[in-house]
């Protein structure tokens, strides 16, 4: 394996600084004892971390986003797994079109999606409801789900399924006992990526959110629009640290590049 020269390593160090700077600065400033975003810190304080507990709206939004993400990711898996099976295992007219349609939300600006769904759901008096947000998120996250489930299926030898069939297993049994266990890592990876994408989604949610259905990114965005006090920093820092923890655990059994591209590590 060829090594990087000193110039390359210096570039790499600068790059890492750029990537980590805004995250570290948020974590740092969340420990201020002042009433404003004071940096450098003069003393550590947990004042603003305690303030999270005193502000029920952030906690409520956190639980709401959790519920939203779990529901949307699960529903997305239910429609994406059969579709991925159809795409991977059959050749039929319109297959290319099906692939293109199912991936299309990736190409549509989220503002456009938000506008379209706001108009659509307000026609039924449903805008600002949990159901409208779930539907919107299913559309946003299903392309990711399909990519990972599809990658799992393409790594699966169809002969294993045929062997099971030749031994007299019914189609349903083959799916339940052979295919599903083998693509389970792909489905799990897709579910996690879909959940995280839903949990972080801002733009589409902004159009559909209401005081009773307010996901965390929307809550945070609207709060920052009004004021920026260290409470934003402690909530953001909690999100960063939570994500980092999930990532470290996840990386043990599901490398991040595979999670995000569906491909195996080089």
């Amino acid at each position: 394996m060829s090594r990087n020269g000193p110039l390359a390593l210096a570039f790499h160090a600068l790059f890492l600084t750029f990537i980590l700077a805004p995250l570290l600065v948020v974590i740092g400033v969340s420990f201020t004892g002042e009433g404003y975003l004071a940096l450098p810190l003069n003393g550590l304080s947990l004042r603003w971390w305690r303030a999270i507990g005193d502000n029920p709206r952030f906690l409520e939004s956190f639980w709401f986003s959790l519920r939203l993400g779990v529901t949307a990711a699960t529903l997305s898996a239910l429609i994406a797994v059969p579709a991925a099976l159809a795409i991977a295992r059959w050749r039929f007219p319109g297959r290319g079109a099906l692939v293109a349609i199912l991936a299309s939300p990736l190409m549509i600006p989220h503002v456009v999606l938000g506008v379209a769904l706001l108009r659509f759901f307000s026609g039924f008096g449903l805008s600002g409801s949990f159901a409208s947000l779930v539907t919107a998120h299913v559309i946003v996250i299903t392309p990711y789900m399909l990519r990972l489930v599809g990658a799992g299926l393409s790594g699966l030898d169809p002969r294993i399924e045929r062997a099971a069939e030749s031994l007299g297993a019914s189609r349903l049994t083959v799916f339940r006992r052979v295919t599903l266990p083998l693509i389970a890592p792909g489905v799990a990876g897709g579910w996690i990526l879909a959940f995280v994408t839903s949990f972080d989604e801002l733009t589409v949610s902004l159009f559909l959110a209401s005081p009773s259905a307010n996901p965390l990114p929307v809550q945070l965005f609207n709060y920052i629009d009004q004021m920026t006090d260290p409470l934003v920093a402690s909530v953001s820092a909690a999100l960063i640290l939570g994500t980092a923890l999930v990532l470290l655990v996840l990386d043990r059994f599901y490398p991040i590049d595979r999670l995000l591209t569906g491909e195996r590590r080089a």
Partner: protein
Amino acid sequence: MNGRSNLTPALLAAPSLVVYAGALLLPLGGVLLLSLHGFDFEKGILPGWGLENYRDLLTDSLFAESLLRTLRIALWTTAICLLVGVPEAWIIYRMAPRWRGAMLLIVVGPLLVSVVVRNFGWMVLLGTTGLMNQVLTILGVPGAPFRLMFTELAVVIGLVHVMVPLVVLSVWASLGRLDPVLERAAFSLGASRLTVFRRVVLPNVMPGIMAGALMVFCLSASAFATPAMLGGKRLKVVSSMTYNEFLNTLNWPLGAALATLLMVAILTATLIWTRFVETRAMRRLGEVAEGGKGGSRA
């Protein structure tokens, strides 16, 4: 399981197609129709049809200004992401395997943190009394502190931070498909590191770079959160204009026309880019074939 029944794939695809038709195609069609209606501040959405909204937008200097700003920001972001992200992916690729995983985790991990949080970090860094200006002042940079927040520069910085991991990832994926033997062969023939990168690696990862570039351009041109948070209320881009019409001015038909134009612009850019990449790839194939026939070019 191949083609035994023609009905099975249709049944398998049906649930997803029903959801997409109901919650994507229908609403998008609705936006198109809505954009053809007029609007009155007292009467609301007018029943008549017409192209007035589009005429109004295309003759509006404010719209032209934010369209140009949107394109400028997206182009700068794409260019910087490529200049920085491609070498970074290459550097990580050449690291010892035990470092690679950790580095990739640091570089790509922020993708899983909400954009709102990341933009907030830049707000703290780029403020007039923020860390960036403090450092610049200590270093004695003339003119410091600068006004960084609410400028196009701030928006581009924020967008690069959001998008550059996508380029690294896209190039990383195509580096994974690169045969390491090619590289070693080039080295053994006496090529320098730079030559190997330029003549062997770069052509092989070109598809990944092209795909990454398109993705970054489309996402930056349609980004809402970063321009809104780092650009402020005055620096409008097309998506923040759309948001404004829908949630503040409440002129939905005009907002729908804006949304339609944004989407058409993005789809057109995608088509042109895909066509450009395809012709390029064909030309390259031609060159390779010719090179093979003609022997050495030196």
